[in-house]
């Protein structure tokens, strides 16, 4: 029998945080700086969940929806009138996620007309 593992708070894998952060900074980052970044990510998620809860309750719902997230990103100044949400999605998310979020009419959209 294996010893019961200690319950840890769920967190993003540090390798992923490291990868994303170094992709954007483009300068060498010290190891202890990455530790701080991980802490920040943890705090960010905690605050995100609190905010989303408040916005969902405000709309008298019990399920977080896309509208709540868009409102949050608007308040964060990420989404503005000049920078709509779907533009951010197009810019930062991989294709399979974009397809889920921005449904495109794929059927009957024949580029090459067959004779």
């Amino acid at each position, binding site marked *: 029998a294996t010893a019961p593992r200690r319950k840890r708070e769920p967190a993003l894998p540090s390798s992923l945080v490291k990868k994303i952060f170094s992709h954007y900074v483009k300068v060498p980052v010290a190891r202890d700086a990455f530790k701080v970044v991980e802490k920040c990510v943890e705090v960010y998620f905690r605050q995100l969940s609190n*905010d989303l809860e*408040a*916005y969902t309750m*405000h*709309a*008298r719902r019990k399920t977080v929806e896309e*509208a*709540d997230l868009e*409102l949050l990103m*608007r*308040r964060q100044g990420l989404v503005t009138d000049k920078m709509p949400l779907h533009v951010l999605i197009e810019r930062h998310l991989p294709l399979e996620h974009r397809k889920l979020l921005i449904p495109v009419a794929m059927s009957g959209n024949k580029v090459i007309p067959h004779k």
Partner: protein
Amino acid sequence: REEPAKDSSQYRLKAAVHYTVGCLCQEVAEDKGIQFSKQTIAAISEITFRQCENFAKDLEMFARHGKRTVINSEDVKLLARRSSSLLRYITQKSEELALNNLEQKERKKKKSSAAKGRTTSDEQVEAVMAESEDSNMA
């Protein structure tokens, strides 16, 4: 020189804000025994004016999020959520306002009921008068 109506109204609003900020700064100055320069008061006024723009946009957003077209106290609380001390203060104030509103409503009810009572009695008197007049006429 003529100016567009929007500009002149904006200047009037800014002047009103500036005046109130001046009064508030004076109170603080007397309270703390410090001096505010004219530039400082002007800067605070400008900050206040621009902050109002942010508040207005956010409140509008929150009301729309709650599928409403009228901004209510819940939206204002959501605006102040970030700072716990401010939220406490706003919540306290909104409760006070709610209590005042209730009291006023009750007073109105009492007044209106009293008025109704009076009107009924007046009407009765009038009716009696009319009857007596009628009888006199007859």
